[in-house]
């Protein structure tokens, strides 16, 4: 198992899938000659040529629609949207075409596209480069949404997403492309549904996804050290469909839940996981579930204000202490 970076894992998945199937193409802004804003397609342009590694014009709805149309004929496009903030412009084609075409054609057409995009907040990029849109994507029937929290998942989820016949949105993170982690040397396909236990625990479950898994893990260590509270951390790498069974199993064991999301609370991952807990295992609860979320504001530029707007590991610790009254 080699330790590689998140971006290298994504690049490796592209490379293997493009070598495996001549119908796999990559497209997006500055992904070819430049190799991608976060290097995720480095070297592929030279290897596979401009017809398969396509530098697109800055036309998000246009090239996303083009990729979807191509997928009707068996092409398998991996579309990079440079920043998730720009994906708003492609919403028409993602929601109105990719997510619905199988249904409204009575199963005749499918859109096996992969759309990947960095989806979190970085540092001081300002309001229009700091959107967290996972809540938007996960609310749409007909679209799969996954969000890797480490290089192994980033590699294996992209591999499976390329081969799956559904449209898949992969929510990546600007701050995570340089994160290192072990990735199997042998070819590996990560399931597109489910969740992973990132840390075993018995006292409370911390639900995280993508970057917030890391905040949960940090918080769990501190809670163990300072209070002897052993938190279980569940990595919800699939946001749609959410893993009801995984959520139920962990809460049935710990009887307490805190959901940690990088986005604003309204209509988000936390709200959805709480609803599932209610539906699946309400009577297992020893305490009302809590969520740790961003403030409901556009992200500010000022460093201190930005920090105040976003949750962190300390906020998770605070929430758990409040829940236990310690």
């Amino acid at each position: 198992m080699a330790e590689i970076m998140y971006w290298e894992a994504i690049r490796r998945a592209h490379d293997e899938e493009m070598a495996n199937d001549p119908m796999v193409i990559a497209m997006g802004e500055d992904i070819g000659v430049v190799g991608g804003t976060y290097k995720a397609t480095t070297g592929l342009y030279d290897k596979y040529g401009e017809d398969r590694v396509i530098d697109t014009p800055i036309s998000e709805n246009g090239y996303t629609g083009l990729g979807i149309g191509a997928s009707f004929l068996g092409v398998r496009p991996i579309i990079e949207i440079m920043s998730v903030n720009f994906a708003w412009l492609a919403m028409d084609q993602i929601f109105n075409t990719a997510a619905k075409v199988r249904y409204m054609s009575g199963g005749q057409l499918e859109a096996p596209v992969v759309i990947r995009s960095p989806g979190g907040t970085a540092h001081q990029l300002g309001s229009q480069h700091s959107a967290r849109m996972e809540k938007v994507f996960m609310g749409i029937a007909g679209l799969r949404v996954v969000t890797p929290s480490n290089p192994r998942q980033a590699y294996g989820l992209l591999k499976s997403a390329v081969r799956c016949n559904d449209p898949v949105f992969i929510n990546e993170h600007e701050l995570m492309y340089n994160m290192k982690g072990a990735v199997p040397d042998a070819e590996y396909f990560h399931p597109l549904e489910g969740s992973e236990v990132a840390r075993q625990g018995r006292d409370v479950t911390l639900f995280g996804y993508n970057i917030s898994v890391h905040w949960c893990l940090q918080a769990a260590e501190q809670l163990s050290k300072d209070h002897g509270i052993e938190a279980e951390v569940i990595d919800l790498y699939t946001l749609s469909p959410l893993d009801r069974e995984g959520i139920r199993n962990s809460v049935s064991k710990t009887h307490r839940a805190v959901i940690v999301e990088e986005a604003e609370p309204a209509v988000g991952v936390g709200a959805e996981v709480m609803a599932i807990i209610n539906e699946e295992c309400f009577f297992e609860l020893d305490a009302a579930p809590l969520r740790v979320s961003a403030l409901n504001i556009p992200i500010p530029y000022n460093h201190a204000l930005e920090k105040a707007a976003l949750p962190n590991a300390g906020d998770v610790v605070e929430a758990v202490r409040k829940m236990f009254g310690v």
Partner: protein
Amino acid sequence: MKNAEKKRVLREMLFARRFEERCYEAYVERNIGGFLHLYPGEEACAFGVLEAAQPGHDYVITSYRDHVHAIKSGSDPRRVMAELFAKETGVSKGRGGSMHIFDVANRFMGGYALVGGPFPLAAGIAKGIQMQGGDEICICFLGDAANNQGTFHESLNMAALWNLPVLYVCENNLYGIGTRIDRSTAVIDQYKRVSGYNIPSAQEDGQDFDLVYKAASKAVKHVRSGKGPYFLELMTYRYRGHSMSDSNAYRAKKEERMWSGRDPLIILRDRLIEAGELTKEEFKDMDTEILDEIEDEVIRFATDSPEPPVSEVEQFVLAENDPWVRGGVK
């Protein structure tokens, strides 16, 4: 095209006209629900272009005004009507409706309800053709008002840039719902708007089948020979309101009369009569035959067909049993 062939086309066009008129009645009878957009007046556009192309081989994609394009692409009219009647036997199994006719076996890639949505999809289908190396082309029929969407410009740019085999056909009926083109669009001649993308284009009378056929033959040849996209603007008019919920009160009677006098069916009929290929009586018989066929076969089939079972309402959302969902484990 030989006159005998044109007679066949006239019959098909008349069938399309009667089919659409029967849809109107079925809507009033409440057998068809939702939004219903009809095609009478514009028949020479779809027929002229698709006669010049190879329906069933070439890919066709269009908007919500899609019944006739599907039928001309090879769809069974009974199954198109069944779709409008929301039946399981409909082309889209009753899940699509009037605006979402799909018949992929005949390479009819769908009717789409978002104005301008098919522009990039058509370019993408053309990209797929290009990758597969076939000689098919993709034909995208859309209205005039759709050209004010960003997708129009984004798609023309990419189609030209990547030399994609796509023919964009603009059915310019002078209105987007009730807004006349000169009130929504700075450049009235749509074919001129594509010159900014180095795409060859032409404007033609969309009421005259012969002229459309000729212009489309040139356009299809251009695209099929690998020279990249082409844009064909056809000047036409719809004889009914935009959809069934449209009052149609915004058009001048004089304008409507002028266009009624240019009915594509009558133009072709009279030409064939003049050429001695057809008599008035033959045309009448043809009409009676078509009306009977629509009633006895099309409407009967749609009426007698079952509705989709409610127990299957969650089918077709995602791929069934896709092994990659479980990481490739079967």
